C-alpha cells in the first residue's frame, strides 16, 4: 500500500513542495519537510487522542440513519452540531477480542483492555495480567520521542476500589486503556492539579533557568545511580523478579529522557508555560472536572509537551450516578436496562452528558490556532466504547466516532463498514498519519478504507 502524505497538512505539502505528489512518508523526509515549512510557517505536528466511555451506549440514539455527508445527528450526537464537519461517525466496527472466546463473563474488563490493544486479555485476578501494547503507546514509542512526555493518560474516576473488579479479571483491566507493554498498564491521572504540576512543574522548581539546568543535571546523576542499582540488583534474581525490575529500569529511562529535555529547553529558554491558573484539585462537579482535564490536554498539545493522549470519562463498569442530570442510579446497574425504554432513556441521558463534555473539548481545540489551521485540524481523536449495548454486552456495531484531524482524513461523514471490521484497522490508519507505520496491531486486518480521499 502506498501511504500518502496525510500526516502533514495538504496545504503545507502544496506550498512546500509545489505539488501534491503521493510520496511515501519516510523518516529521512522529515528534516526536508520541516525546512520547507520553515520558509512559510512552522509545520504543526500531528497529535492523537483516545477518549473512552464505559458501559456501552444507547445505540438507538447514536447511529445516524443516513450515510455520507448529509446525515442528521441523533440525540446523543447532537452536542456535536457545531463541529459536525469535523467528525466521522464510523458504524459497524468490532472489538472481537472483547468477546468471551471461551473465557466466560467479564465483558467490561475485556472491553476496556482490548479496545486500544486489539488483544484478548488474559483472564486473571492477579499475578499474571497480560494484554497487548495499545495504539497510543505504539505511537508514543516513536512519535513520543519528540516531546517531553511520550504520552499523557488522563481520567475522571480514580481506580482504587476494594474487591474483585469484573468476574475474575484484575482491576488493572478496567482502570486503564493505555498499555505500555502487554503487562504494564498506564494508569490515568485524575487530579487536574497533579496534571498541571506534572506538565509545568511545581512552584518550588523556580523560574531561574540556571537553577533548573543544575537541578536537571543532578536529577540525571540520581537516575544514573538508580539505573546502576537496578542492574546490579537484577544479577542473581529469577526471571519474574528481573521482569519486575526491568519495568522500573524502563520507566527510569523514560524519566531520564524527560529530564534531558527539560535541561535542553531550559538552556534554550523554551520551557512551556501555561496560560491557565493552577487547578485546586478535583472539582465536585463532573462536567467541570471533565472540562478541566480537557483544558489540560489542549494545553499539553498546544505547548507540544506531548502529542499523544488517552482519556477515560470513567472507568469501565463505572457505577457512578449522575444526579446533576437527574440520574440517581449507578451507571453500570442502569446499563443492564433489560430493554426497558425508561431505563434506556436514562442511559441516553448519560451518554449525551458525556458527549457534551467531548463537544466542549472539540470546540476548544477548534478555537485554538495551530500552524496553518486549528489544533483540531492537527489532532486525530477517537471517542468510543468497547461495548455497544450495555445490556447485551455485545462488542460488534461499536459506538466509534472519529473527530478532528481534517488534514489527515476527510471528515463530516457517516461511514458504515462491513460487519466484523476490526476497530484496530482504524488505528493502523491513524498510526500511518502519525508517521508510525505499523504492520499489525492486535487483531487488525489492514487499514480502514474510505477515511481519506487520498487513499
Amino acid at each position, binding site marked *: 500500500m502506498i501511504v500518502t502524505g496525510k500526516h502533514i497538512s495538504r496545504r503545507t505539502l502544496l506550498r512546500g513542495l509545489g505539488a501534491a505528489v503521493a510520496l511515501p512518508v519516510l523518516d529521512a523526509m522529515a528534516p526536508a519537510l520541516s525546512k520547507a515549512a520553515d520558509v512559510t510557517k512552522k509545520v504543526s505536528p500531528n497529535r492523537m487522542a483516545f477518549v473512552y466511555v464505559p458501559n456501552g451506549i444507547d445505540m438507538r440514539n447514536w447511529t445516524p440513519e443516513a450515510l455520507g455527508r448529509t446525515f442528521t445527528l441523533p440525540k446523543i450526537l447532537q452536542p456535536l452540531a457545531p463541529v459536525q464537519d469535523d467528525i466521522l461517525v464510523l458504524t459497524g466496527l468490532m472489538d472481537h477480542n472483547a468477546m468471551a472466546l471461551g473465557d466466560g463473563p467479564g465483558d467490561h474488563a475485556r472491553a476496556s483492555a482490548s479496545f486500544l490493544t486489539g488483544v484478548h486479555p488474559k483472564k486473571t485476578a*492477579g499475578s499474571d495480567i497480560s494484554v497487548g501494547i495499545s495504539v497510543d503507546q505504539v505511537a508514543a514509542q516513536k512519535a513520543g520521542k519528540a516531546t517531553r512526555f511520550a504520552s499523557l493518560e488522563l481520567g475522571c474516576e480514580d481506580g482504587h*476500589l476494594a474487591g474483585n473488579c469484573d468476574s475474575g479479571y484484575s482491576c488493572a483491566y478496567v482502570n486503564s486503556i493505555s498499555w505500555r507493554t502487554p503487562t504494564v498498564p498506564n494508569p490515568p491521572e485524575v487530579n487536574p492539579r497533579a496534571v498541571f504540576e506534572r506538565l509545568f512543574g511545581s512552584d518550588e522548581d523556580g523560574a531561574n533557568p540556571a537553577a533548573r539546568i543544575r537541578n536537571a543535571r543532578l536529577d540525571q546523576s540520581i537516575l544514573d545511580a538508580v539505573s546502576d542499582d*537496578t542492574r546490579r540488583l537484577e544479577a542473581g534474581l529469577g526471571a*519474574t523478579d528481573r521482569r519486575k525490575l526491568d519495568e522500573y529500569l524502563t*520507566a527510569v529511562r523514560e*524519566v531520564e529522557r524527560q529530564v534531558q529535555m527539560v535541561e535542553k529547553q531550559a538552556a534554550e529558554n523554551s520551557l512551556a508555560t501555561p496560560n491557565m491558573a493552577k487547578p485546586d484539585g478535583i472539582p465536585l462537579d463532573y462536567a467541570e472536572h471533565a472540562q478541566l482535564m480537557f483544558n489540560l490536554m489542549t494545553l499539553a498539545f498546544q505547548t507540544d509537551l506531548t502529542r499523544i493522549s488517552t482519556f477515560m470519562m470513567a472507568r469501565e463498569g463505572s457505577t457512578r450516578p449522575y444526579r446533576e442530570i437527574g440520574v440517581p442510579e449507578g451507571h453500570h446497574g442502569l446499563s443492564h436496562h433489560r430493554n426497558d425504554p425508561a431505563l434506556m432513556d436514562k442511559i441516553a441521558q448519560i451518554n449525551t452528558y458525556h458527549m457534551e463534555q467531548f463537544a466542549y473539548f472539540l470546540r476548544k481545540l477548534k478555537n485554538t490556532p495551530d500552524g496553518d489551521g486549528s489544533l483540531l485540524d492537527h489532532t486525530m481523536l477517537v471517542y468510543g466504547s468497547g461495548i455497544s449495548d450495555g445490556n447485551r454486552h455485545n462488542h460488534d456495531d461499536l459506538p466509534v466516532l472519529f473527530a478532528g484531524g481534517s488534514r489527515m482524513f476527510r471528515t463530516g461523514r457517516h461511514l458504515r463498514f462491513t460487519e466484523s471490521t476490526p476497530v484496530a484497522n482504524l488505528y493502523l490508519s491513524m498510526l500511518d498519519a502519525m508517521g508510525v507505520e505499523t504492520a499489525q496491531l492486535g487483531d487488525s486486518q489492514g487499514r480502514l478504507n474510505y477515511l481519506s480521499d487520498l487513499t
Partner: protein
Amino acid sequence: MTMAGKRLLIGFGIAALASGQTAFEQNVGAIVQRNCSMCHNDKLKTGGLVLTKYHDTAAMLQDRAVWEKVVARLRAGEMPPKGMPRPTPEQIASMTGWIEAQFAEQDKSAKLDPGHLTAHRLNRVEYDNTVRDLLAVRFKPANDFPADDSGYGFDNIGDVLSVSPILTEKYLAAAKKIAAEAIPMGSLPKPTRTRYSPEHQFNDEQLSLEHAFDLPAEADYNFRASVSGRKEAFVIRLELDGEAIETANVIIDPNKPRQYEAQLHVPYGEHVFKAILTSRDPTPEEVAAAQRMAAKEQAQIEKQLAAHPEDAAEIRKQHTLASPPTYIDALEIQGPFHPLPPPLPESYRRIFVCGHAPGHHTNECARLDLAHLAKLAYRRPVTDAEVSKLTKLVAMAQASGLSFEQAMRIGVEAILVSPNFLYRIERDPDPTTVHPVSDYELASRLSYFLWSSMPDEELLRLADEHRLCEPDVLRAQVRRMLQNPKSDALVDNFFGQWLELRNLDSVSPDPDQFPEFNNQLRSAMRTETRMFVSSIIHDDRSILDFIDGKYTFLNEKLAKFYGIPGVKGDQFRRVELTGTQRSGVLTQGSVLTVTSYPTRTSPVLRGKWILENVLNAPPPPPPPGVGSIDAQGGVVHGTMRQQMEKHRANPMCAGCHSRMDPLGFALENYNAIGKWRTEDASLPIDASGVLPNGRKFNGSAELKEILAGDRDAFAECLTEKMMIYALGRGLEPYDRPATKKIVADLAVNDYKFSNLILGIVDSVPFQMGRGDGGESK
C-alpha cells in the same frame, strides 16, 4: 448410621471388590455414576464440570481443586440439587471422608513448597507509612501517586504492582519534597493561607468542625471560621487546642459576611483548631430580618412557579439547596506573621546522626549519615560500594555549588528512588532449594504484614543479632507489634479491603430516597466498623465475633439511626447489642451500605458478599450470554424479593442464585443504607429463606446462627484472605497444608484472633522461601 444405611454400604463394598474395581471407583465412581453423571458428563458439562472422566485416584488428585469443590458442595447439601435423587447422608459422609483421606495422604508425601514472593513494589499506603517511619515527614507524598491495581481482593500483591513512567516521575518529585522537608534550609516560612473545607452535602449537619493544622513556625496567625446559611441565630466559639479564643454572635442578616476570626501568637507544631455553633434565641430585629428574607424567597419561588408550573418539585428543591440550614463551611489559618526560626525537624536529627551542630558537619559525616539512613531505608545491611555511590553523589552536588546540607538532600533523594528502597526484594542463596528467609526478610515480612510499614529499630536489631527467627522472640515481637498503634494499618488495609469498607468513601446513596445519609453518618459507620475490628484485634477476641459479636461501638447519631436508645453525644462507646436487631459486621451500616445500589438493596450483592467473605464459597460468575439476574440498580416494581424470585425462575440462573439470594433475603430488613425496615414498596418484608441444603431461617439473626455454626468455613475463609494479604500473593495448592493447620489450631484455641496472626507468622509460606524458577506446577 442407620442399619439400612450400613447394610447398603457393606453390600455395595463387596459388590465393588468382587468386580475388581479400583479404590476410586469403589468409593467415588459408583456414586458419581449413579447420582452425578446425568448432568456432569462430557456432553452436558453442567456448570463446566465433568465428573465421568475420572477413573482413578491419581486423576482425582491431579484436579484436586475440582474435587475440593465437589466435597464442599456435597457436604453443604447443595448437590445433587433439590428434586434429583441424592445419596444417603452416610454415603456422602463415607465418600467425602475417603476423598479427604486421599488429600491428606497426598499432603504428607508432597514436597515442601513455600512459594516465592515476587519483588514487591511498595504500594501507596506502604510508601507513606515507610517514609513516615523512616524520616518522620509530616505529609503523605503518595496522595499524588496513581492508584495501585489490586489482585485477589487486595492492593498489596507483588505480582500485580507495576511501575509506569508517571509513577517514576512521582517518585522523583516525592523524594525531592521529602528531602526538602527533612533538611530545611533555614529560611523563614512565608505567610500562606491554609484552608480546611470538607465536601459538604446539603443534608450534612456541620455545627462543629475541627482540624489539626501543622504550623511551620512560632509566629502570629489568624484563625478564621466561615459559616454558611443565614436563617438561624447562633453563637460561634473558636477553640485552639481546646481553649476558647473567640466567641461571637452569628446574626441573622441577609448581607453580612459570616466570617469570624481571632489573632494569636502560637508555638510551632500541630494545633487543633475547632469552631462550634450553639443556637440562641434571635433578637426581635433578627426575627424581622428572617421574615423579610423568607418573604423575599417565597416571592421568588412563586414567580418561578408561575413561569414554569411543570417544574414545581425541582424549583422547590433548588430553593432548599440554595438556602441550606446553617453550618460551618471552612476553617482557615493565615500566617505565619513575624515568625521565629523554626526548630530543626525530627527528620533532620534522624539524618544527621554524626552528631554535629547544624552548619558544622564535616564531609566525613556524609558517609556515616548515609550509611545509617540507607540501612534503615533498604531494611538490611548495606555494602561499602552502595554507600560510596551515595557519597559520590553528595560530593558531586557540592562541586556543582551546593552547600553540604543541600548536597545531602541529593543523597537522601537517591536513597528514596533506589529500587532497594522502593521494592522489597528477597534473595535466594540457592534458587533450587527451599530455605528459611533471612532475619531481615522476616523482619520486613512481619512489619509490612502488621504495620504496612518498614521494620523498626527493634526488629532490625533482632535481625542483626540473628535472633528474630527464634520462635519465642518472634512470638513476643508479634504481640508487641499488635499492641503498637501502627497495627491500625491492619484495620485499614486488611479489614478495609476484606470487608470492602474502603468502598464506603465512594458510595453515594440517592439523597432523595435516603436524606438521612450524609457525611456524618458515613463517617460514623466507618468508625463503628473500625472500632469493632480494632477491639477484636486488641482484646484478642474470637474471630466468630465478626459474625455475631453482640456488641459494637456507637455514638448518638448512629445509635439513633439504629434505633438503639441511651447513647448520648459524639463520643463512640461500646454498646451491648443483646436484644437488638444487630450483631457482628453483617448488620453494621457500613457493610449493608457498600453491598447496596444507590437507590435500593441488592440481595444478590449481599448474598455474594457473604459467600465470598464469610463462607469462602464465591459463586462462579454468570454463564456467558445470560444477563444479570438482578436488575442491578435499575428501577424495580414490587418488592425486591418478588422481582428476584421472578428472575430465579430461569433454570440457568437458579443453581447459583439458590445459594446467593436466600442469604441476601435474610438481610432485607435493612434498607440500602442499613436502616431497619419492615416494609418495602409498602409491602411487608419477607426475610425468610431456605438454603440449598434445606435449612430454613427467618431474618438475619437466624441466618447468623447458621453461619456461626459453620465455624470452620468462616475460619478457613478469613485465614485464606489474611494469608493472601500477609504474603502479598495469591494462594496455590501447595499452601493448603499451611492454611488447614491454622484453621485446626484456631478451633482448639477458641478462635482467638492472635492465633490467626501467630498461625500465619509460624507457617511455612511465611517463614520460608525459594527461588522463582522452581515453581512446582
